[in-house]
């Protein structure tokens, strides 16, 4: 079943005018912010396909800025997101790209916070639903529907086992898991979608595992703020 429950049909509550171009854009940008783990100082968003063609009229640009500010899909500040970003000291720029993209409504984020730079590639696939395809050029397959742990580590034997054991011991059920690496023995990324949020102690435990570089938590639940992780 593509649509899982009643609230994927009735809902979300959102700021108009388009669930694909507005609500989906907010959610993609929120995932990007959580992936950075903080509000970016600077953001550059490249739009593809229908996003590139009609983003002005649909307020897709405002929706993307709003998501970077961690606003939810129905936040009344979305139409004035440009001003709020300025007030928050966040510089944003938009570019359009005519190249073919994985989906007609696709956006690529480049985010900067101090020295830290991140990228995300994702699409808005209809009714406010999203599909995140890349985090820092690592392939993933995320919907943002479930709390998601993103772990950057080195590609060493036993690392995945240690991660899943720690989750199991904390009674956190893994719904979906995606692993990609830059090369053998190189940097690897594991994204784990879970049925419930990981508590702080579990994240601390995961962080102390050998070969672990960093952990980010993506959680699009209303009002959720993952910057502290």
């Amino acid at each position: 079943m593509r649509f899982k429950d009643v609230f994927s049909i009735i809902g979300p509550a959102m700021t108009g005018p388009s669930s694909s171009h507005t609500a989906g854009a907010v959610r993609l940008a929120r995932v990007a912010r959580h992936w950075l783990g903080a509000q970016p100082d600077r953001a550059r968003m490249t739009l593809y396909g229908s996003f590139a063609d009609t983003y002005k009229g649909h307020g897709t640009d405002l929706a993307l800025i709003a998501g970077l500010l961690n606003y939810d899909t129905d936040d009344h500040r979305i139409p004035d997101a440009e001003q709020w970003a300025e007030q928050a000291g966040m510089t944003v720029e938009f570019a359009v790209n005519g190249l073919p993209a994985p989906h007609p409504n696709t956006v690529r984020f480049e985010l900067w916070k101090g020295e830290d730079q991140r990228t995300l590639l994702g699409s808005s696939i209809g009714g406010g639903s999203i599909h995140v395809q890349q985090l820092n050029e690592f392939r993933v397959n995320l919907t943002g529907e479930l709390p998601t742990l993103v772990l950057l580590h080195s590609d060493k034997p036993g690392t995945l086992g240690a991660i899943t054991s720690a989750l199991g011991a904390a009674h956190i059920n893994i719904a979906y898991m995606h692993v990609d690496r830059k090369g053998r023995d190189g940097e690897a990324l594991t994204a784990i979608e879970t049925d419930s949020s990981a508590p702080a102690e579990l994240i601390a435990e995961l962080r102390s595992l050998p070969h672990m570089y960093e952990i980010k938590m993506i959680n699009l639940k209303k009002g959720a703020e993952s910057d502290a992780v």
Partner: protein
Amino acid sequence: MRFSHLHEISALCAEESTTIGRLMIQEQVQETNTTEEEIFRQMSDYYEVMKEAVHRGQTQDTVSRSGLTGGDGKRLAEYLRAGETCSGDASALAMAYALSVSEVNASMGRIVATPTAGSCGVIPGVFISAQERFGWDDEHMVHGLFAAGAIGYVIANNSFISGAEGGCQAEIGSAIGMAAGAMVELRGGTPEQAVHAVGLALKNTLGLICDPVAGLVEIPCIVRNGLGAVTALAAADMALAGVRSAIPSDEVIDVMLEVGSAMPSKHRETAKGGLAQTPTGKRLTESLTRNTSIKKNKS
């Protein structure tokens, strides 16, 4: 969920002597492992957002961001108050409210996607005008939203709900089918009658293309929401009177899938065909592009 087709919904309701709305709540509890109270509260919050949108569209100026549309919901309500509607007061009020919600959507106001933002006016238009007319309480209306959700769930999973995928028959059509079935249930009709209402309504939207001018959710989307609300009321009346959908409603949903899949991409929200490519459609698109580039040069 224990159902994936409409005939399964009416069979389950008959076996368990329940309504579509109550069945949907029960299934949602099971599926998401949350409490009935929590689920009911979520849907009640959505109904509040719908009522606020109607109110905003009826009392405030809702000019869209493009400047192409706005004010028709109020215009229609004024015309209704002046008397002498052609389609009857119930239809005119449902239309006025549906236009208002769609206009709030186009002005970047707050709405609920039912099932999408492009079709967000139909259900509030039908529900809120009917609530005023029949004096139902909010709890009754929220049950109706669950019934609408169950119908939409079947349509979405067996066909489509977005114009980009299946044309406007999928987007506005789904909303009309959902509103028609739910209205039957709100009026005390049987689940079987509600299911017939869905088929009767969908038959009248089959083949409807998605052709938004300049790609924006405004022309013809807003007007189609208003007309859609009236179709939903009419289909509900037919079903309550005992009219049956001679082609079973599940088969009508399958036809929507067949027709939508066969639609060329120019008629699926790309703005490359239909009303978007009429001389006026093109002129409006060009004038918007020109304004945007003027703004760009200034900044």
